[in-house]
Every structure is written in C-alpha cells, then in structure tokens.
C-alpha cells in the first residue's frame, strides 16, 4: 500500500521514535555500548527448489555464470569448511560471545559444525532454511510459516532450545514476517538496519524486540557490495564503535556486527577482523554480549 500522509510510519511493525526524544537507556554495570556479533552460517543450494526467490546478484564467485556456478557455490561453502573456525577463534580471543545465525540446511546437514557451535556456547539465531530460499512477499503465508517452523525445529533439535533471535536469509522479509516470528516464539529480530538502540516491535502475539543490524559495517555490504578496502573497513568498524561508545555515555547504544565466514574468514581478511575486535574491545565501557542478554537488559530497563 502506498503511504498515507499522516504522522508516523507507513506500516505497523513499529512506532516512529526519534532517538534523542527517548528516555536514556542504561546498560548493566555502566556499560555504554552493547556489541552483538552475529556469524552467518548460510547454505547456498546448487539447485534451489523451483520458485525460490534468487537475488539478482548473489554474492561470491567471480562474475555471474550459468548454473551450476561452481565458483560461487563453492566460495560460499568455504565458510562452513574453513572460515568459520578462524572467525570463532577471533571472537574467543577477544572475549566476544558468538551469536550464530544458522539456517536449517546447515543445522540438518552439517551436524559436526552445528554441535561444535553449541559446544562452544554460541547463541543460535534462526536463519531460515537456506540462503537460496529467502523469505519475500512472493512466498505464500503457508510457505513462510513452514520456513520459520523448519528453521526453529532444526535449531531446537540441535541445541535443545528454540532460538531466541532471527536474522532472515539474505536479511529479507515479507510484510508478514515480524508477526509470524513473534507467533513462533522468536524474541528478537535483526533484519531492519535502522537504529542505534533496540526498540520494541508491534506484534499481536508475544514480545518482539528489534536488535537492528548495522548495515555499513556488515562484511558483505562493505567488502563485497561496496568493495571497500579491507583496512578502510576495519578502521570504519573501530570508528563507528568508538563514536557509539562515546555517545552511549548519555544513552546506551548497540552495534550489531554481522560477519560471513566465507568472506571475512578468508586467510587474507581475518587479520583485519582480529585487529578491529582488539581495538573495539579495548574501549573502556564496551559490553560484548549474546543477543538474548541484550534483549533482557533492554526489557529490564523498562523499555
């Protein structure tokens, strides 16, 4: 529906709110910046089911090739086999808890990797069924419900508990998605890159909190789509975190940093992540946390 010319948002997913007009947000222990790092484990199918929506220019490979595009498909697979361990080690080395957005095909078919993530204490986020099956408005409601259910079930089987968070495959949604996620028991959603603080989403069932991903520091957006240099990306992450940290003295801020092991986990890139994390984690009032802990703190603060 085209927008109606009235005050507020042109949809019902959340209320309009200008950041300076909000009551000050206080994180636990006087922290000023909550850092939520999400590692994406996304499987890209060689032969997606007929009717799956495909991005016009999916990432990876060298340039668009006719199917089967070995280069792109195997490039994306690199994360599961090799890159993820570098990324998780880099997070561990800097005391950063790992949140892992894992799609159902990964949970179902990469058993070793799924169990490894659980054993390392990673918080799992629902991530749909596959990167090659993003949720969009082309999907019927029944298909979307089935996608969410399969994702939740796969992670529940793996870890013994349903996921608290959600990051859509390719960060995509239909107009129904937040409602359906809340119905399925999801507590926080990271798809909308629109804020520096958590905010409440408006849902009929349950309680859904937005933990907005920060698009410009997203490794795919910066390093693949925009082709920033690696050094510039690392410097940008540090500068963004530093400014958010300083602004957080007045009202706490959030940085959701999304990382793809097939991309940032390459041998020549991982050092940039390590140096950025070292700098960010040396900020005096930084709080690196699991998504669910950030949601708890936000809701405990009465928001």
């Amino acid at each position, binding site marked *: 529906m085209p927008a109606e010319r009235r005050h507020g948002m042109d949809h019902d997913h959340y209320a309009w709110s200008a950041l300076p007009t909000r009551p000050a947000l206080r994180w636990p222990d006087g922290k000023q910046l909550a850092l939520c790092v999400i590692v994406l484990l996304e499987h890209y199918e060689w032969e997606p089911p007929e009717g799956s929506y495909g991005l016009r220019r999916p990432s990876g490979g060298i340039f668009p090739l006719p199917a089967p595009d070995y280069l792109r498909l195997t490039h994306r697979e690199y994360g599961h086999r090799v890159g993820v361990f570098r990324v998780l080690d880099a997070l561990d080395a800097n005391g950063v808890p790992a949140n892992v957005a894992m799609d159902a095909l990964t949970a179902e078919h990469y*058993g070793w990797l799924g169990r490894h993530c659980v054993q390392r204490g990673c918080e799992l986020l629902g991530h749909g069924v596959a990167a090659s099956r993003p949720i969009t408005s082309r999907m019927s409601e029944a298909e979307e419900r089935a996608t969410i259910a399969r994702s939740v079930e796969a992670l529940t089987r793996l870890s013994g508990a349903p996921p608290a968070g959600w990051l859509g495959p390719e960060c995509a949604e239909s107009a129904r998605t937040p409602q359906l996620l809340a119905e399925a028991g999801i507590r926080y959603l990271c798809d909308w890159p629109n804020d520096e603080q958590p905010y409440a989403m408006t849902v009929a069932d349950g309680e859904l909190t937005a933990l907005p991903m920060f698009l410009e520091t997203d490794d795919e957006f910066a390093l693949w789509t925009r082709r920033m240099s690696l050094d510039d990306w690392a410097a940008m992450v540090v500068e963004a975190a530093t400014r958010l940290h300083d602004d957080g003295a007045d009202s706490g801020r959030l940085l959701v940093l999304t990382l793809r092991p097939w991309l940032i986990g390459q041998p020549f890139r991982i050092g940039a992540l390590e140096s950025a994390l070292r700098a960010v984690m040396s900020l005096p009032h930084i709080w690196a946390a699991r998504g669910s802990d950030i949601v708890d703190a936000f809701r405990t603060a009465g928001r």
Partner: protein
Amino acid sequence: MSLPPHRVDYLPIVDRPRIEWPGGARVALWVAPNVEHYEYLPPRDPQRNPWPRTPWPEVQGYGYRDYGNRAGFWRMVEAFDRFEIRSTVSLNLAVFEHYPEIGAAMLERDWEVMSHGIYNTRYLHALSEEEEREFYRDCVDTMRRHTGKALLGMLGPAVSNSSRTPDLMAEAGLLYHADWMHDDQPVPIRVEAGRLVSVPYSTELNDVPVFLQHYDSDEFVAMAKAQFDRLYREGEQSGRVMCLAIHPYLMGMPHRIRHLEEIFAHVRAHDAVWHTTGGEIARFFLDHCYDDFVAHAARLQAEPEGKAQDAR
C-alpha cells in the same frame, strides 16, 4: 548426509587427518598464470557472451587479452625466472597451435600445463554429455601431442563447468579439478568411477576480480602477503595450499611487474614452502592423504555424537 550435488563430504578443517607436505613444508604454493586465447569471432553460446561491450568483433576486449600473449607473458616469464618460481600454466590448449613460441618457452622451463580448455570462448555450460566427453579427448590429445605428457588437471575454460564435469574428467584420466573454492586443502571429489581431487585455486587472490572490481596492485600485494602469512602460520598444524592466480595481460603490465616480484620475494623469504604445481599437489594427496580423508569423512558422518567435535 551431504547435500546435492553430493560431490563433497563435510570435513571441518580443524578435524582432519594431518597433511605433511614434502620436506615438512607448511604451505604448498602453486602459481597459476592463465595463458589464454579469446577468439576474435567465437561461436555463439546460448548462455554466455564473452564480448558484451559492442557487436562483434570487440577489438578492445580482444586486444587487452592479446597483449598478454604478445608482451605481458614475456615480461612475466623473466620474473618467474629471476625468483625461480615454478609455474602451473592454466592454458587454453589451442595456444600451442596459435603461438608455438609460448609453448616452447613453457616447455623449456618445464612448467606444468593444466588444461583451461581449448579456448576461453568455448564453454562447457551448454555441452551435451557426448560433446563434453569429446572435449576431454581433444584436451588430452592436444596435451600429449605438444608436450608428450599426460594431462593431470583442469580449471574449466573461462571457469565454465557442467554438472557432469567431475565424472567426465575422472573418466578421461585427469586427477584434479581446480574450480572448487571451498577449502585451503585438497579434498576428494566424489565421481562415478575412479578418483578425483580438488586442488584449491582462488577467485579472491586472483588479479582479474581484484583489478576489474575496484582494487589495484598495492592491494593485491597486501592480500597476497596476508594470505601467505596466515596459511604459513596455520600450516604448522597441517599443510595448507596457496594458489596465486594471475593473468599475463594484467600482471605482465609494465606498471605491475614489480608488484608480482614483491610477492615472489615475500614467499621466497620463507623456508617451509613447497614450491610446487597443481599436478604434484594432486598426486601427493592421492598417494598419501586421499584414503584417510575419505575414511575420516565417513567416520564423522557415522558418529552423530562424535567426540571429535571439540578438536581445534
């Protein structure tokens, strides 16, 4: 259970049989210049247009690449000689016929030749099974005719492949396929009959995407050094493979050759490096690692609650 196309079993790099390269090397380095011929007026392919800029002929794109064979290659050869770097040429095999001087220069240096198809404008995407089978016969025969040697591996022509490619490669007696970007080690590729392994090439540490998509020579050098340093460090635990993928029409440019030399100097300053070729890596892996990798993958599949998960 592996996912379609069921070619590769999941093996996390932190839980695999250890690879010990010859001489205790940490990194097996193969340098792969792509020596290519793009046709002036190629046959039309239903799925892919090599020259989209203008109606054919497209002399700018053609000439840019032709420069590589006329000038860039020869400057590049000097850099390889100076640093005694071994080469695995990813060769459009018709180059032997069009430009025998290039063939002679490669054979003189005992460079390994890997198939990169016949021309970079003849793709595998749309071939029938029989046409693709005939393609391998042509590649194997052309290789034998001009070098007297067996053909060991392939990077698909202009990185094109079909879903049958690994099966037909193995059937034709090839040992390795370089179109798999999924790993820092060779990995068994499941085929209908025989054995085939992937030897990791690179679409990242590769001058074409680097230069055509934003970056330039300084970034390429920084990438190559960082890649090498990381793999060299990790290779202490288990051998790694590094591929440097280059093109004479790019790295052979007068303003880039010093950057290539800087990369060569960097790798030459380290001892625990196996300066090798795609074929030698494949043979070594087949002789010493392949069976262990297959058995280990089967074990990981069979043990849903496998204890090895914590190894890292």
